[in-house]
């Protein structure tokens, strides 16, 4: 059975004293936070792996009893309409711009140099609309675009796909 440590103890402070902002009304201390998460892509792993291989993968419900049999991009492993397990399908890596915005002021940790165009892409055969960014050119609603994939030095994130005007 484990026992509490019984030897001689000399307890020491090993932290780093906090910086103090001595406001007139109250003390405010600078409290650093830093952490890492180990985040799983779970059953969507083939999607992110697909990007690094130049493939755009969606999931489709193939349950004959499903009322909608939707094709999902972003993919989802389980159909929300009938709860069947979906199947992977490769979808065209081209589409049309449905909406767009230019990012100027961004949040901390942004991995893209601002400003840049963020676009929402309608893809034939896909029931949802897919968010991404435009590598070059200027977006217009309805503009045909094609996907490009970061197969070399991938980021292992959604940033491994981007779009360019189709007639580029």
């Amino acid at each position: 059975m484990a026992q509490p440590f019984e030897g001689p103890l000399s307890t020491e402070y090993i932290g780093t004293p906090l910086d103090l902002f001595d406001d007139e009304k109250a003390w405010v201390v600078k409290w650093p936070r830093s952490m890492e998460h180990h985040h799983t892509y779970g059953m969507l792993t083939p999607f992110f792996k697909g990007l690094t291989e130049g493939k755009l993968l969606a999931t489709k419900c193939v349950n004959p009893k499903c009322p909608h049999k939707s094709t999902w991009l972003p993919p989802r492993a389980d159909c929300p309409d009938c709860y069947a397990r979906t199947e992977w399908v490769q979808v065209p890596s081209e589409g049309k711009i449905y909406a767009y915005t230019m990012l100027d002021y961004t949040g901390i940790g942004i991995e893209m140099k601002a400003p840049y165009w963020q676009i929402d892409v309608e893809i034939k055969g896909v029931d949802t609309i897919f968010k991404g960014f435009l590598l070059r050119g200027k977006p217009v609603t309805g503009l045909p675009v094609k996907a490009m994939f970061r197969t070399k030095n991938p980021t292992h994130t959604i940033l491994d796909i981007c779009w360019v005007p189709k007639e580029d």
Partner: protein
Amino acid sequence: MITFGKGNLRVPKWSKRVFMVAGGCTPFRKYFPEYKLEELVMIAYKMMLEDNALKLSPKEIKDSIQYCAYGEFADHFQDQLLCEAKIHDYLGLEPMWNNGIKTGGATGGAAVLNGAMAIASGYANCVLVAGWERMDEVDTRTGNFYIATAACKDFETRMGRIYSSYYAPMANRFAEQYNLSEVTRAKIAVKNRGYAVSNPNAQQPGRHTVEEVLASRMSAYPLRFLECCAMTAGAASVLLCDEEMAYKLSDTPCELFMAGGTHTLRVADRRPMEIPLLPNEEPGQYDKLLAESGRWPGFESFLAARFAAYMAYRMAGIKDPLEELDLVELHDAFTISDIQTYGDIGLRPYGQEPDYIESGDAYFGGKCPSNLSGGLLGTMHAVGATGIWQAAEVLWQVQGKYDHFHGLDRWWKRAGKQKPADYENLQVPNAKQGLWISHAGVGSHVTCGILRKAW
């Protein structure tokens, strides 16, 4: 085309009527180092107990509370899990049960709805609803990132790390589909920030011009800084009762009708759906609009808001919202989300939303003014408190207490401000009924509450 199950469309029917009798809030600021979080909540709670002409003493009311619903948006901001326990203890309300409520930007509304359910079910006859957010521990860009974690971390957050970028594509789409000009959007910022000048608690009051709004710095095109709400530190609370307790406590209680709706977190995942029709809409009314836009709600509208209003209007027996509501408080986190909501809650038919502003209906003195409180753009968005504070502002209007809660020198002094020479008493004459919308994500959760004069 997604349709809804018959059972899913059942209108909520509460077992007991629900009433709201009192509200309180702190001043709202970007940075509030004078007070710890629980001290801020105490300020709002005490204002609720002491300044609403309640007929029992604060101690007697404290001794009457049986349940608390607490709203807090993000543990990230507080950097403290189980804040609810700290606050509950600080307010001295053990051992009564509390629930912590989290539904993004709609957290405040969701907390009120949760408290109302406790009354309606008979679990309690006197319920405290309180909410808070302290968004001042981190700098603005870190705060923007924290908020953007309320987008999908796998497919959206990395695309901007700021929430305006998830609304901006909707603004562009809406402008093209429904002929919305930037000027109309800017007018909303001018209006709400202007009303905030008369709110002693407002964080961002200002007499701006349309030109100033459009010239302000771009956040995500086409949304400018002055079209976006700020991050706030502050708290708010309201008191809910059953019928017997409501009249025991107050000579001016308001009856509450309330429901909520939800939709995908990722806007991208919205599939084309049927439009649940409000009582003042006709089948077939939107056939042409659907043929042109291709899908509803698309990026133009919010199913969650439509569903919440669909239910709440039926609960309250409201047939024509524009005619029957005397005022509304909408979730104007961004000018575009404000405009989108006009169609969802039937202030205008879909496709004609900008007319609610252009007609003058939305202004003080208009048919159904919106955000006389200053809204989120002018006054506050301390997220967990927001939907609760909005409810208090509607309550005070229906009680005829706008001037009491905004005009008295003591409130200006409490906020460390001078009452401005251009203060306006924005009391809606003979207000009998008002609505507020609490809204999350890019339309992931929306509550619709209606307060009706009950004396």
